[in-house]
């Protein structure tokens, strides 16, 4: 394609938008709304996922064993735990280690108090395994399996935080997908109408073009350009607003709930923005292209 042909199509496409500004704005607005929602969900799920991952690396399952069981037996069970595919890491904590940890935590600065227990380890039966899973989603199954081991006396795990977040994320993803698909359908419909109106505006021109010997490509390209430009604008507006909105929202949260900031960690916008831009542009430009391409193919015979 000649460069002048490219500019011709671009110019005519933009002219189409100008002639049909209200329809075009409505289409761009719906696409904007759709992509704004998408960006919102995207940022939310990314952050929740981030928190889940943080939780996964800090939250584990702790199992304690029956009294009187030997260390060798415990280690054998530990080996079979490690063999499970969902286990990332399993760490053995002997009774002595548990007691030392306990002392360090509770008798800080008053070590002489602990001396009173001397060699009489009060946590003698507290040998344990700390198990970290690859994914928090496997936790329920893992706990179930651990329950079947008779030598295990007690299983400590946090059932809500991580897996709850994970479930929340899945729900959020599903909900957002449904809403976005509905909005995309509305957007495609509006673009299709916009393009049909534009084609009606240019009916005479298109007829003349045909008789002069313009190819189907030359006749149709301006309309597809129109769709793509609308889609592009419809994606750019929410992207720009989300960029600034996200930054100030994070800053606000950090200031307001600063004390909790070690619990609530947000992904910096720079980290998720490139991916967000890529997907949003694909959505916007894609819907603009598809909406106009198929409309013009069906309604503008060349």
């Amino acid at each position: 394609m000649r460069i002048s042909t490219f500019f011709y199509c671009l110019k005519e496409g933009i002219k189409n938008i100008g002639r049909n500004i209200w329809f075009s704005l409505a289409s761009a607005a719906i696409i904007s709304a759709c992509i704004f929602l998408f960006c919102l969900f995207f940022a939310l799920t990314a952050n929740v996922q981030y928190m889940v991952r943080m939780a996964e690396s800090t939250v584990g399952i702790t199992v304690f064993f029956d009294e009187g069981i030997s260390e060798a037996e415990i280690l054998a069970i530990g080996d079979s735990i490690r063999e499970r595919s969902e286990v990332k890491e399993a760490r053995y904590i002997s009774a002595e280690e548990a007691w030392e940890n306990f002392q360090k935590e509770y008798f800080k600065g008053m070590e002489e108090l602990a001396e009173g227990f001397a060699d009489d380890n009060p946590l003698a039966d507290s040998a344990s395994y700390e198990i970290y899973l690859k994914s928090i989603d496997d936790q329920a199954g893992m706990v179930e399996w651990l329950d079947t081991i008779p030598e295990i006396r007690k299983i400590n795990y946090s059932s809500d935080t991580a897996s709850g977040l994970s479930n929340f994320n899945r729900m959020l993803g599903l909900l957002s997908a449904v809403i976005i698909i509905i909005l995309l359908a509305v957007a495609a419909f509006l673009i299709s109408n916009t393009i049909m109106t534009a084609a009606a505006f240019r009916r005479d021109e298109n007829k003349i073009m045909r008789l002069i010997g313009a190819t189907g490509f030359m006749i149709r390209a301006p309309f597809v350009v129109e769709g793509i430009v609308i889609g592009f604008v419809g994606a750019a507006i929410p992207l720009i607003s989300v960029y600034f909105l996200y930054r100030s929202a994070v800053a606000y949260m950090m200031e307001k709930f600063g004390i909790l900031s070690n619990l609530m960690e947000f992904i910096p916008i720079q980290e998720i923005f490139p991916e967000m831009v890529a997907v949003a542009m694909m959505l916007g430009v894609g819907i603009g292209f598809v909406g106009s391409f198929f409309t013009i193919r069906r309604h503008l015979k060349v």
Partner: protein
Amino acid sequence: MIEITDLNKVYKAGTRALKNVNITIEDGEFVFIMGRSGSGKSTLMKLLLKETEPTSGRIIVNDMDLTRMPRRYVPKYRRRLGVVFQDFRLLKDKTVYENVAFAQRVIGVPIRTIRENVPEMLRLVGLSSKYKSYPNELSGGEQQRVAIARALVNSPEILLADEPTGNLDAHNSMEIMGLLEKINDRGTTVIVVTHSQEIVSQMGRRVITLDRGIVLDDSGEGGIYDEN
């Protein structure tokens, strides 16, 4: 050369617009097609432009068989023709210059070539001074001259004009005819559809007379035909 053999056109509604038409037109000829309204003149033009398909028969234009031409070749084929209509069909929101340039732009001619060709065409039709005007600022005769410039800018081998003077007074009509003759002198085959017995007799060219889809006469000056 245009060779039309046993051409029939029946519209979906059942109208037989052309019946067993046989016409041969040599390169560089100037031909009038005459006939009263509804006799099939425009249908013949549309068939030559491949705007519509014949029901049967053959049309061969410069060794190209239109009935066998693949769809994707049609734009290329049309670039070898120029068309002019009764109602001018100019783009109202474009200037004279842009209207003519448009014909080149839509087929991807480079800007530099367009800048050379368009003024030359406007000179040929005598509208150099009005290149900035819009169609509604021009008289009917001037608008038709713009349309002719547009039809010629791509250097067509054949110029098809469907009642080009239908909306013009006698004086403007003769000017347009003069222009068409000038174009014919440059070697372009010119086919003009007209109602006007007066024009035809003044021009003294070959006249093909159609009547209800049949070639009634293809001998000389269409003398036997009385307008309406």
